[in-house]
């Protein structure tokens, strides 16, 4: 069955430091993959998405993600975080067979001064 695992429930980084949020997926076919961000008291917003082509995809606000079929991963990265990046980040897989979206449990990012 399809699934998404975000192994880190919480991540704390210093402002200006680099960031990687991990995502592992399980899916038999070709996955559609997304990263969404949820700021406090708001709905989710799309950061980036991937289906095919260049395994490194660029998103908004300096975020990028790298797809690896061999590792079944889709990790999110940012070169230099800002305090405003503090939020919850969700990795999402689109199940093309059932037309549903499967969410990871989310990673809560805290950026400290």
């Amino acid at each position: 069955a399809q699934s998404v695992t975000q192994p880190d429930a919480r991540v704390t980084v210093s402002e200006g430091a680099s960031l990687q949020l991990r995502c592992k997926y399980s899916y038999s076919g070709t996955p559609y993959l997304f990263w969404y961000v949820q700021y406090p008291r708001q709905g989710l917003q799309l950061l980036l998405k991937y289906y095919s082509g260049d395994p490194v995809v660029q998103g908004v606000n300096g975020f990028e993600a790298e797809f690896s079929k061999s590792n079944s991963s889709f990790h999110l990265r940012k070169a230099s975080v800002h305090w405003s990046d503090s939020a919850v980040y969700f990795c999402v897989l689109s199940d093309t067979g059932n037309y549903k979206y499967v969410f990871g449990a989310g990673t809560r990012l805290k950026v400290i001064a």
Partner: protein
Amino acid sequence: EAAVTQSPRNKVTVTGGNVTLSCRQTNSHNYMYWYRQDTGHGLRLIHYSYGAGNLQIGDVPDGYKATRTTQEDFFLLLELASPSQTSLYFCASSERQNYAEQFFGPGTRLTVL
């Protein structure tokens, strides 16, 4: 830009109570979704629809009914609310399945006493 609104934003009811959560999207999207968000689980799909009058069962449908009255409006009904349904509920819409971005509403926080 797609707009998804939800009402009410906050709701408190008692066990056994009757609750209706409303969602409206104004971007003429075909697909609409109801999710619940609980700590440690990410977002879990309750019901979804791909058009007026259509309803599809999600992953956690027990205790919930839904109805899509128009392309714009999607309702979630809890006819005998239980404390286990205390959660943050999100509505989302998308133009199509698979690779399409989902647009989320701001959420409804429901407390069942």
